[in-house]
């Protein structure tokens, strides 16, 4: 296979999915596995984008342009098709850290940056990776998706990093995904997300939906909560999550009484609180993000709603957010994650202690921070197993890698490049910490397309 079709491969997977879901007969082909596992077979049947070049005479372009176009054409064995070059010449190896340090998302992403730095420092203190010290190259995504794409490209092309860690929002991940795929460089993404995605160059170390949302729903079901109200911010994760929740509810005899979205950053929730209250639901499933949570919970309490009468399960409120909303408004509400600061185990004690020592005693640790911390160690283990920084070899070595993470043992699923993770439901205490009230007992196999759930067959 030449390099050309190599890069096109991943586009084609997308196209096949398209055909699958919109087949003229109206038949849905739920079997994602077929598409993925047999990509070699299907590949041949689909035409790839023609790698045509602009001709010298293209209209509206000056002679100078034409000249340089010819010049470029002669060395058309261009670099983009090669795997990203990695600078391993010295006694250091560079990795990229790509988080928003400014803008609206800085609130959350700075904490992820902190724990990435912690992991890198620890690794360097114990000898580095393959004998090389890890040198972090820091970039600011500035809460702006095109900037994320630009910075990703800079890290890969200019800095020749071995891997990049970061991104928080789905939008930023979607923006950088093609950059990593085209340059064949690795991204470790540490945040729970809406699933329905697998990229050969992204490792997802946060939860996918069957490790967070579905356990959350299972828990509500086990508590006898039948009528749900859905509240979310207006973006990809809540909308997709709510689609899945609706499908789950339908299959499990639950009813969805309402579904409301507020624009990201919205801080006026009195109407939504009124609607929730009037619905007399058993519980609320909350996928709000950031600032909106503060306003929502203040309004929720003002409306006289409590965790006792109508509990809220949140999937974006971790310890850091509890701190900024205030336990006054959150006491006894529920969260669904894979990690809490209070999670038991020696690995977590060490992590929490190290984090507080480095960043301050009042700083809490949270799920995305832990997933970020874990992702650096996982990369180290993969590199050491592969005995190379080459992304292709690292990928090949990834399957089955385990790590005794603060959240408990995690294992890399090589096929999906997600992790086996234990789901944990927590209750927010008046001290601002979250206590686990339920867990899944053992790590759940990642299933980003929910192929293992019959009710989810119409979703993707």
């Amino acid at each position, binding site marked *: 296979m030449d390099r050309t079709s190599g890069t096109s491969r991943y586009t084609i997977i997308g196209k096949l999915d398209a055909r699958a*879901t*919109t087949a003229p007969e109206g038949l849905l082909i739920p079997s994602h596995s077929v598409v993925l596992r047999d990509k070699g077979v299907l590949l041949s049947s689909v035409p790839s*984008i023609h790698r*045509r070049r*602009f001709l010298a005479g293209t209209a*509206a372009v000056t002679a100078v342009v034409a000249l340089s176009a010819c010049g470029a054409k002669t060395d058309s064995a261009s670099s983009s098709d090669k795997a990203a070059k990695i600078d391993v010449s010295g006694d250091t190896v560079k990795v990229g850290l790509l988080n928003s340090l400014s803008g609206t998302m800085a609130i959350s992403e700075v904490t992820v940056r902190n724990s990435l730095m912690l992991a890198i420092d620890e690794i360097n203190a114990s000898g580095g990776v393959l004998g090389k010290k890890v040198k972090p190259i820091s970039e600011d995504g500035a809460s702006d998706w095109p900037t994320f794409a630009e910075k990703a490209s800079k890290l890969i*092309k200019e800095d020749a990093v071995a891997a990049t860690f970061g991104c928080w929002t789905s*939008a930023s991940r*979607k923006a950088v995904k093609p950059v990593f795929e085209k340059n064949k460089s690795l991204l470790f993404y540490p945040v729970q997300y809406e699933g329905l995605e697998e990229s050969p160059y992204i490792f997802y170390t946060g939860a996918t939906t069957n490790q967070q949302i579905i356990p959350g729903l299972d828990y509500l079901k086990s508590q006898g909560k039948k009528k749900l109200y859905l509240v979310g911010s207006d973006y990809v994760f809540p909308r997709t999550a709510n689609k899945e929740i609706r499908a789950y509810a339908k299959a499990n005899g639950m009813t969805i009484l309402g579904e409301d979205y507020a624009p990201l950053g919205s801080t006026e929730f009195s109407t939504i609180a009124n609607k929730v209250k009037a619905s007399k639901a058993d519980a609320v499933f909350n996928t709000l993000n950031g600032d909106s949570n503060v306003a929502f919970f203040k309004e929720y309490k003002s409306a006289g709603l409590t965790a006792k009468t109508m509990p809220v399960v949140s999937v974006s409120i971790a310890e850091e957010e509890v701190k900024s909303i205030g336990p006054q408004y959150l006491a006894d509400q529920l969260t669904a994650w894979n990690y809490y600061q209070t999670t038991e185990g020696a690995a977590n004690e060490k992590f929490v202690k190290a984090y507080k020592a480095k960043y301050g005693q009042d700083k809490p640790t949270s799920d995305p921070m832990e997933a970020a911390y874990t992702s650096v160690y996982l990369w180290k283990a993969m590199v050491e197993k592969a005995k190379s920084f080459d992304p292709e070899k690292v990928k090949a070595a990834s399957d089955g890698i385990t790590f005794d993470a603060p959240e408990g043992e995690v294992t890399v699923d090589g096929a999906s490049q997600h992790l086996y993770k234990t789901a944990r439901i927590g209750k927010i205490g008046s001290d601002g910490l979250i206590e686990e009230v339920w867990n899944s007992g053992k790590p759940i196999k990642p299933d980003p397309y929910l192929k293992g759930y019959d009710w989810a067959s119409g979703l993707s």
Partner: protein
Amino acid sequence: MNLLKGRSARAAAGFAGAAALLFAVAPLLLSDFRLGLLAKYLCTAMVAVGICLAWGRGGLLTLGQGVFFGLGGYAMAMHLKIADAGPGNLPDFMQLYGTATELPWWWQPFANPLFALAATVLLPMAVAAILGSFIFRRRVKGAYFAILSQALAAAFAIWLIGQQATTGGTNGLTDIQGFFGYALDDPVNQRMVYFVIAAALLLLIALARQLVHSRYGELLVAVRDSEERVRFLGYNPANVKLVAYVVAAGMAGLAGALFVPAVGIISPAMIGIVPSIEFVIGAAVGGRASLVGAVLGAVGVAWAKTALSEEFPAAWTYFQGLLFIVALAFLPGGLASLVGLVRRRMASQATDSEETKPVVPVGEAA
């Protein structure tokens, strides 16, 4: 008319110099990555050309250029997404988030490349024409106009985000593979995109220059300085302003359209209040009334943003704030006014001897 000739000759030399820089020097000196960044900066410079016309010359503080940039960008990106998906297929994001099994009717024409290309410029212009004719006719101006255009930018961004199934929501349109059949990940084609952008920028500058130096350009300045007076001369200032507003919108639309292949993404993050103000700052720093100043200012500020945020992310915010304050409070003409100041000082030294005393009118009645 020697003066005029001298000016044209200087302009021609300037254009040749700029073309040499953009088409020969930059591609030789810069890596593919940096050239790609330059392409992005040039897109903001295209918006700045329009802002120079509307704000610098016409006094219309267009704080909503993000809307037009977005219209152009989405028109282009949607065509490319549809083309990527292939005939009969839905773009990937619609399969993920949408419920429809076919393209909504209002996206369907964008499958046609010619329609999409025309729409990138004509759609923003049409929207600007409708908005502008309402706003200017009712003599909403100055601060009102600025606040209103901000509000519109906010509304448009919120609306786009809310329509996830058909516009990609917050994600916007990403992962664009091809550009009219050419694979975008090929550096050669990426370089061609850069050339197209550079050529388009030069074209827009030439167009704006013609407008600025035309009778219309003089009239536009007159409207900026005293709208009421122009009205008493028998012109309708609303129409004069409308032309500048619509042209600026078209330029922002084209910039948005070309931004898509250069960066590979268009999203509401490029549309709301903040990006709309950022479009203005470049022009303000360089010199709102000077085309060259506005363009260089836009490129300079965009470059500074990348450079500073690579080194000191937090410092960028302070620096940006300071730029606004210094450029507008203390140097309202922008950096270009410094050049003008020097030139005027030199000229005034030459003419100081000729005293300008009041002359009593003489001669025949008209």
